[in-house]
């Protein structure tokens, strides 16, 4: 998770060299840099290398195959289906997750009695893990004993097979992911709304703007940096945090077309790497995902600098 502050990659000129010492700063940096080098950068390079091999991490076998892994992936209907599902899932969770969070944060920012309690109750679910979320939803939407179907059966006489019907399972995982992400987004939106310049909005009201106009014409543009930041953190969350949720809730299923309806890129990566032990194929998928994350981050910096209103 990044900070919503101005993300400038290079240290700026305002830093002063207060303390002297050539080796000292490196001593302070060494633990962090060492861990990053060994557990992040080395595995990243190794992933790129493994992607060019037909390998099995359990047997310890390796055979150089060049770009064959990538060619196989990109021509595989199952992988294309998984990629498409991931895209749809990501777009849905990010769009609806952010709209809902913004609405709720805006509502909770109104100065009504007990507002701080409301805010607290809205952000508490942040402490829930994706695995717990999956467990709760699994029980709630259990076709036979879940309370949702008990209610639906009572009211409308329907008892959908949530986890066996591809569309329903997909919708369920998407809803659960949106629900899980709400609190995190609300935290950042609340903080940003509290930092909005009151005088600008007051001026708009004096000029006769309605509350809706103030929101869409004044507040919403001013909230664009945080929205922008959240779009990208939410994309990353949809790509990766969905793993525990789908693993517990649906196990990537139910099977439809060429793959499980709720099998997303990271779940497929895990399946190939640790269930089917196709290490090379999994590494190639990891390499593609690395490229995807790099692209998303690049977009974030590029678009973020240009289009987003960063306040004063």
């Amino acid at each position, binding site marked *: *998770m990044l*900070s919503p*502050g101005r993300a400038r990659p290079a240290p700026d000129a*305002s*830093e002063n060299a*207060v*303390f002297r*010492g*050539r080796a*000292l*700063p*490196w001593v*302070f*940096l060494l*633990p*962090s840099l060492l*861990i*990053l080098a060994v*557990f992040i950068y*080395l595995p990243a390079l190794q992933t790129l290398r493994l992607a060019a091999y037909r390998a099995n991490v359990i047997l310890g076998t390796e055979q150089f195959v060049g770009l064959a892994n990538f060619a196989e992936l990109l021509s595989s209907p199952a992988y294309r289906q998984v990629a498409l599902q991931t895209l749809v899932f990501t777009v849905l969770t990010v769009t609806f997750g952010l709209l809902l969070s913004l609405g*709720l944060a*805006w*509502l*909770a*920012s*109104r*100065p*009504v009695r007990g507002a701080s309690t409301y805010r*607290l*109750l*809205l952000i*508490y*679910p*942040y*402490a829930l*893990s994706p*695995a717990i979320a999956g*467990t*709760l939803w699994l*029980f709630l939407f259990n076709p036979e*004993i879940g309370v949702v179907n008990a209610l639906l059966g009572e009211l409308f006489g329907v008892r959908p097979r949530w986890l066996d019907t591809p569309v329903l399972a997909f919708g369920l995982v998407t809803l659960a992911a949106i*629900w899980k992400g709400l609190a995190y987004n609300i935290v950042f939106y609340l903080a940003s709304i*509290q930092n*909005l310049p009151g005088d600008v909005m*007051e001026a708009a*009201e004096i000029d006769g703007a309605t509350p809706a106009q*103030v*929101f869409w014409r004044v*507040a919403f543009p001013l909230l664009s940096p945080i929205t922008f930041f959240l779009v990208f953190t939410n994309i990353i969350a949809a790509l990766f945090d969905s*793993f525990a949720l789908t*693993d517990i809730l649906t196990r990537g299923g139910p099977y439809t077309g060429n793959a499980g309806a709720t099998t997303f890129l*990271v779940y497929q990566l895990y399946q190939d*790497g*640790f269930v089917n032990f196709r*290490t090379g194929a*999994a590494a190639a998928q990891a390499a593609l*995902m690395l490229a995807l*994350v790099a692209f998303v981050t690049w977009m974030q910096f590029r678009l973020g600098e240009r289009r987003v209103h960063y*306040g*004063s």
Partner: protein
Amino acid sequence: MAVKHPAAPSARADRAAPRSRRARGVWVTHAALIVAILIISAPLIFAVIKSTQTSSVVLSPSLLPGGAFLQNLSGVWEDAHLGRYMRNSLVVAVCVTAGKTLLALLAALAFVYFRFPLKGAAFTLVLLSLMLPTEVLIIALFDLVSRDLKWANTYAAIIVPFLASATGTFLFRQHFLSIPTSLADAARIDGCGPLRYLTHILIPMSTNTIGALAVIQFVYAWDQYIWPLVIMQQDDKQVVQVGLRKLIEVGGQTDWGAVMAGAVITALPPLIVFTALQKQFSRGFALTEDK
């Protein structure tokens, strides 16, 4: 997030509006917030209620609380090893949180108060690591940790790789930059070294940032799932998130009352940390927001 009361525009609009319209607006806000909170917390409320019901009631749609919580809990605590999973998760989350905070403080100290060659490159190296999530590296990381380091089934495997924190380094750097340098100059003239400056001046001035980060890092470490799932083959070192999966997996007959009791207990430690550090969390973020 109750630190600063927002000067929300609606407040001022309401003030100008007729009294009845304002009163109705307030009422609608209350109602909307209550409904939203009820919907959002429904799965949680449901879990808490179900965790108290006996195994005969738990499968019925009944939403009346029962008195079997402790019985449900003791079932999973001993028989399904929830107690052991919780202890493992606690050890890991505390170590990761403490380690990340310490390492990030030291790194930020170097970045803000020293001038040295390759500083920009080092900072970029820290920041770029944000682009490399564990999930993507998991294949190669598994190879490294289990084959080369032979750490499979040790706590080290789920602690050490996560000790460096780009987020922490970045936030501490931002915070240190907001502290006047004259303070550091004065400290240095008085013969205070960088480490003493860190422990005596910077850390006491950074409690909100430390608290905010501690919440994020504890929750992150507590929620770890995919990495422990693959690297911990031995059950006695497994973390509680993966343990939950095993509670459900027991076979055809899932004891849902016990599972819900397990889920409720598993949710507690992050909630406790969150509650304890709620003020710091809010302030820490308000401070690091760009204004």
